[in-house]
């Protein structure tokens, strides 16, 4: 039986990697992938904390997967639109919000 802490370590690593990707990559697609990583890290947490008496973790994990799918779809659609408008998906160059 693998101690439950190991799942948490992996989940933390996975989350950090996702966060790093989100913060460092310039490409919007990569940022989206980073977000997916973070979401999956949280899924791993949910599942690790799941017990047979208390199955809420599983429900949340399933819920997060569904939401992540939807989010990815919407995110990709937005990126497509952004690309059509700015002809780039480099986040540094899309700084329209400023001024």
């Amino acid at each position: 039986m693998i101690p439950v802490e190991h799942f948490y370590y992996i989940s933390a690593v996975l989350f950090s990697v996702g966060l790093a990707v989100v913060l460092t990559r310039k490409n919007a697609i990569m940022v989206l992938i980073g977000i997916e990583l973070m979401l999956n890290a949280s899924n791993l947490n949910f599942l690790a904390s799941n017990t047979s008496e208390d199955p809420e973790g599983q429900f949340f994990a399933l819920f997060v997967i569904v939401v992540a799918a939807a989010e990815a779809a919407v995110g990709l659609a937005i990126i497509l639109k952004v690309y059509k408008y700015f002809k780039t998906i480099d986040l540094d160059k899309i700084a329209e919000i400023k001024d």
Partner: protein
Amino acid sequence: MFIVIFILIIPLFSFVINALLSSGKATFGSYCSVALLLLSTLGAIHVLFFIETKVLTSQVDWFSVGDQSFKVGLLVDFQGAVMLAVVSLISLLVHLYSIVYMAQDSGYGRYFATLSLFTFAMNGIVLSNNLLMIFLFWELVGLSSYLLIGHWYTKTSASEAAKKAFIVNRIGDAGFIVALCIVWCQFGSFNLIDIQSQMEASQIQNGYWSSELNALPKVWLSILGIGFFLAAVGKSAQFPLQVWLPDAMEGPTPVSALIHAATMVAAGVFLMSRVFVLLDGLTLSIIAFIGALTAFMGGVAALAQFDIKKVLAYSTISQLGYMLMGIGVGAYEAALFHLFTHAFFKAALFLAAGSVIHSMHEIAHKNHLELDAQDMRLMGGLKSKLPVTFYAYLVGSFALMGLPLFSGFLSKDALLIASVNWSYQIGNVAYLIPSLAFVTVLLTSFYMVRQLLLVFFGRPRIEISDLREFGWHFKLPLIVLSVFSLGLIWSLNPFDYSHSWFLAALPGKLNVTPEFDVVIPDLTNHALVGVISVILVALGTGLAWLKFRPGRELMLSKTGQFTLLENLSLNNWYLDVIYEKTVLRIVRVSTSALAVLETRVIDRAVNLLGWVGVVFSFLLRWFDQTIVDGLIKFSAFFSSQVGGMTKSFQYGKVQSFIIFALVSLLLLIFLIL
């Protein structure tokens, strides 16, 4: 009583007729006035004959204030009836005389209207039963006098004289008003009869003069008397207010005869006799002294005048001084007696002078000469040309000088005796008063004889060959007035005033003033006084004859040098100059000082206040703009700075947002844990 109201109202009616008639019908109006005044004169004579010693009075409410009521009422007693008759008669004669005298005047209607108004007002003074009404008519008399002196208003001298007369009189009236205030305060009534009985009941104790109603410090009794006397001083042209009367000669001569010789100026004396009961010892002494002084000053001023009317004017001042001296020594009935005799002979003199002046005008007009028609240096030898005028003048002069057989002798004798007896009783300085009075007798005869000689005797100084006397309009008044100047009319024994019907009819002594005994004039020194005065008259006549007898053309050149005395006389003791330098200067200085105070101080203070307000507002604005507004601005500035600073964080990079969010989250967590 109705006849009295009738007499009072008639002249007012005549005034209304003349005032409303158009100038085309003015002659008709003037004849109307004469007819109306004839009626009122007849009425007055009727009243005089049935009045005897009766006192008629009646009054109605005029208005009331609080529970006090002010009345209007009439009072007719013997002295009032005589005065009424005298005023009506002389006024009638003057109206008649004026019809011709003023015939060519452009203000004919106005003249007659004012003359009637004057007669109304004068009758009002005589008939009023209370002091308020007397004051009312007193002022009205002043107004008509003002209008008549200023009748030829385009002449600056006339309008100046009118103004002077009114203002000087107004000073006297101030005294009258103060006296009215005291009377009202003390007695709560203006009724003459009430006042007399209340005065009898009043007492002087511990320095207070107390009546039923009130108690005032004793000095107010003297102020009361002096107030009334001041009024009389103004109206009767006494020292120191006599300066207006000579100037008043600017008015038409009939006016001078009626108002400024016979009646109005005598109103002061009449008033003093009405309020005689209110005069205390101090006041009476002052009155006696001022009266005698004025008599003397007027006499001196008349000595060297060249204007025929000015001589008469100064003589009027002098004679009024006699009358007031009579009041002052307690012989008020003698004063009234002199008032009535003087009214006739002075009116006769003035109307005769008017006749002379009118003739001189005629000459000037015919011969196209520019001359002063009133200058005696141009007259002379008129005796044969104007016989009626001459005899009227002669009779008038003799009466004025006080020659026996003429009316003036009787009344002047009474006054002189009273003053002599009074001074015996008082002693010391009091002798000054009869002395001045006797000197004045001398002066009077001197200037009257001088005038007679200059005007009527000697050679004519200008061409008068075709001069004729005017018709009955002139002659009738002169004759009537001359007749009344004869002694026989007034007393059956023309050498002894005590036989006079007038004095006999007057009621007894009105000696009610506390602390003062009126001297009862007796006949102790009668013979002596009579003889002395006749001697003085003779002396004065002799002196005048020596100096101005026909043939001597002394002092008649206009350029000649005058002696000091002559200058003093000509300039009426330099009173005008003195007033100009003192009173008027003080008034002018204080006027301009107050005007300066007004514009430079008070107004500037107000403007300064406004200016301070403006400066303060500016300060406030500065405060508002820099401090108050500054605070607001600073806060706005501060927030914009802060905003700018924070804005710089928002450079639009999605990832940096996330870093901030993350850092903040971590901080939050650390803080919470």
